[in-house]
């Protein structure tokens, strides 16, 4: 139903083909959070993956930092219409973390310090598509951007990249997490504009 907006020229715009539809290039790093920023000490930090058999794989900060670390250069896209191109991160691949995890389940609920959750398909986390990131642009990740560590799933809208992540729980069926219960799409592919229900 799109129609031309009277008087709007889109002055000086340059269309960058790396930008998904409806996105605008941001040069700063806006913050989307539902509540206050939790402060998490790496001495108390722990990350775990829990499966349907009751098995729990967990890492403290020291164990986590001893895992193979990858450098990730990627574009990120927030549902609130900004994108940031060519961001650089360091983190541990979910492929590494899932190496010894046996599960038949195909969905994952990511849980964060502070109580927030987001749902993902396991397929969206494996094969080099997702990381637990602890560094942004050469610096430790700021608490307001999810530090000490956040999920990084750059091919989906950025609310799926749960800040302050503390664990993944395998699920037999897809269920909505926090933002998904409050209006955001279950999957969140920016190229298909899967923003809202």
């Amino acid at each position, binding site marked *: *139903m799109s129609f031309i907006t009277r008087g*709007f020229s889109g002055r000086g*715009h340059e269309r960058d083909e790396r930008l998904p539809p409806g996105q605008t290039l941001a040069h700063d790093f*806006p913050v989307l959070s539902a509540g206050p920023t939790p402060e998490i000490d790496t001495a108390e930090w722990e990350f775990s993956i829990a499966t349907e058999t009751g098995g729990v794989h967990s890492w403290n900060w020291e164990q986590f930092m001893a895992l193979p670390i990858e450098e990730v250069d990627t574009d990120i896209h927030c549902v609130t219409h900004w994108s940031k191109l060519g961001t650089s991160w360091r983190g541990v691949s979910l492929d590494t973390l899932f190496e010894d995890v046996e599960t038949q389940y195909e969905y994952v609920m990511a849980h964060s310090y502070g109580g927030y959750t987001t749902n993902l398909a396991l397929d969206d986390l494996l094969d080099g598509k997702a990381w637990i990131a602890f560094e942004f642009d050469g610096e430790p990740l700021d608490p307001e951007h999810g530090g000490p560590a956040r999920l990084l799933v750059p091919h989906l809208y950025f609310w799926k990249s749960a800040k302050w992540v503390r664990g993944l729980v395998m699920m037999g069926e897809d269920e909505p997490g926090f933002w998904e219960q*409050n*209006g955001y799409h279950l999957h969140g592919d920016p190229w298909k504009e899967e923003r809202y229900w």
Partner: protein
Amino acid sequence: MSDASTATATSATSEPAPALAAMPRAGWHVATVVATRQETAKAARLELDVDGWPGNAAGQHLDLRLTAPDGYTVTRSYSIASSGPGTRVVLAVDKLPDGEVSPFLVDEVRVGDRLEVHGPLGAFFVWRPVDRGAVRAAGDGAGGAASALRARPVQLIAGGSGIVPLFAMATAHAEARDLTPFRMLYSVRTPDDLFFAEELMALAAASDVFRLDLVYTRRTPDGWPNLAGRVTRAALAAAVLPATERPIVYVCGSTGFVERVASWLIELGHDARDIRTERFGGI
């Protein structure tokens, strides 16, 4: 709101979650501008009549899309300053100096223009009046249920144009004659930067349950009892409902403002789960 029960989910396995089931269904609509006025030196108020708008709750937002003659489009999210049933929607847009959309909305848009909007959006940063029927019904039965249903007091904290969704909440509260205690702390640069100045003063003057506290960060009105300056932790502690009253706190403003205020609220004993935030970024 009846269409929530017939809302179609996006995949066969998914159902609208409880928070969403209570919300009007979001969709694309054509909005016609029916009134514009200057809100502050930098901001405009736009009143829209939105064809097919299902109504919205206080605190929700919408996406607004502009299309240039060459097909270029740009989309931004705006908080809604109004709430309730009907097709009238009020926005208040602050002009960002380097913005692409806000200068157009503030300087160029005039009555009769048509704009594309998608909404209403968001089911978390919302406030609804107490359903007094439900309280009475519960009160007729078990005694404890009535107090459980009584709404928690509400503290609104706005920085600059972050007032918009909180103004919608304060207005909804007054229009419903809701007796839930409401307090608003509103930080602005100068008296000329107040959004909804007349309406807020009238709300505060007319109500025993709505209280407005203003903080001026750069210049105060003549005779103002406090010096101009940012909200401090001490000022916050003095102006907001204490944690012992278990208020739900809504904070809206720039990221820096929200981060400062929210961390002080935690230090003052408020539970993180009682603090709802909305930040606006730099684009």
